[in-house]
């Protein structure tokens, strides 16, 4: 018995065979923020064979409160999260092959990475990427585990193609103006609770104990002392475009993605959401200003100062990010506020 994994091998749900299976698996984690860094650390410690981590961001001071792989030095060096994560993960377990990808998790990239992956973990901060992961999961028959949190509230759900409902069955459309960590705040116990659920499900799938996989959608609030398990057998939707009989994988289509364009001759990026929706500007302005942002508004738009950039949001969800020409950075700012 390898002494390193002895306590995990002692657990009857894993055992020697399970440990061997974990060792031979490849997991793809989308996002290296709070959920991504925590999930990556646990799977690395558990001795997974290969881990691919995708993230477009770099480490900032405001990440340190909850993103467990990073230190003050990483902030000082402005390291990309994927690179900083890899450095720490190698120090934790040099046997695990870590593949760090610094970039935006576009549908193209997700499809490219899907080959040879046994499981995907959701650690992203927006529904657009989740819906693309969901389509990739169905198209290439790879299970994935949804996880999300805001404030002290969080949720998780295991999605197995052909067996469970998919995220598109549940949501039917991408919710616009959801709560995000930049608008509702976040405490790390909520992050850890989601990670606990995601990694327990991940270990079950990696050791192929499919009967143990949770059938229910879990949501909880650690500050308000709530916990609920929702059975999902009735949630499968036969007309679902991601997992139904006449599936089209709509979220792998460029048409249905957020569009970003640099506006000619100006230090500004325009963002156009995939599905235009009615935003309540009044509510958004109130929310942002009560959070301490400097906000101006009129019946047609809301303008908010965000560090070095200024974002102007229109009623149909379109936005202008002034002060940058970087498309990925602009999209990051947009999704931080609008989810």
């Amino acid at each position: 018995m390898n002494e390193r994994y002895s306590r995990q091998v002692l657990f009857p749900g894993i055992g020697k065979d399970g440990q061997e299976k974990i060792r031979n698996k490849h997991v793809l984690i989308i996002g290296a923020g709070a959920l991504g860094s925590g999930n990556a650390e646990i799977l690395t410690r558990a001795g997974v064979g290969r881990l691919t981590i995708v993230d477009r961001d770099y480490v900032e001071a405001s990440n340190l409160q909850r993103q467990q792989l990073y230190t003050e030095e990483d902030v000082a060096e402005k390291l990309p999260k994927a690179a900083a994560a890899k450095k720490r993960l190698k120090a934790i377990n040099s046997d695990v092959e870590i593949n760090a990808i610094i970039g935006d998790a576009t549908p193209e990239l997700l499809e490219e990475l899907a080959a040879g992956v046994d499981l995907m973990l959701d650690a992203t901060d927006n529904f657009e990427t989740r819906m693309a992961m969901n389509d990739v999961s169905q198209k290439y028959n790879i299970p994935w585990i949804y996880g999300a949190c805001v404030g002290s509230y969080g949720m998780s759900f295991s999605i197995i193609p052909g067996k469970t409902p998919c995220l598109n069955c549940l949501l039917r459309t991408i919710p616009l103006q959801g709560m995000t960590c930049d608008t509702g705040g976040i405490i790390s116990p909520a992050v850890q609770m989601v990670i606990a659920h995601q990694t327990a499900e991940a270990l079950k799938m990696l050791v192929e104990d499919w009967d143990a996989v949770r059938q229910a959608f879990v949501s909880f609030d650690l500050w308000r002392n709530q916990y609920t398990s929702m059975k999902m057998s009735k949630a499968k939707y036969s007309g679902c475009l991601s997992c139904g009989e006449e599936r089209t994988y709509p979220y792998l289509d460029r048409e249905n993605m957020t569009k970003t364009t640099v506006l000619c001759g100006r230090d500004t990026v325009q963002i156009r959401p995939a599905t235009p929706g009615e935003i309540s500007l009044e509510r958004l302005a109130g929310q942002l200003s009560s959070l301490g942002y400097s906000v101006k508004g009129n019946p047609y738009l809301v303008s908010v100062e965000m560090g070095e950039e200024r974002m102007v949001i229109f009623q149909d969800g379109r936005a202008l990010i002034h002060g940058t020409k970087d498309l990925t950075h602009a999209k990051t700012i947009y999704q931080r506020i609008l989810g």
Partner: protein
Amino acid sequence: MNKILFFAHLRDAVGEEFLRLDVSGKTVAELKAELSEKYDLPRMETVMTAINEEFASNDEVIQEGDEIAFIPPVSGG
């Protein structure tokens, strides 16, 4: 009579963890519309609904004694 539970920011908007109301005979969509107006709840059409701890679609009809929970999906991570 029905017990109606609210999660996350919905609970703050309603001001209570749960309400006791008789809403049997209504569809989930009708109840959402009613509560949305009464408590000024944001974007109720995207909120998931559980009836007796089981996922329920918007057109499901609520029965006497059913316990209803409203669970808003979030995107943080």
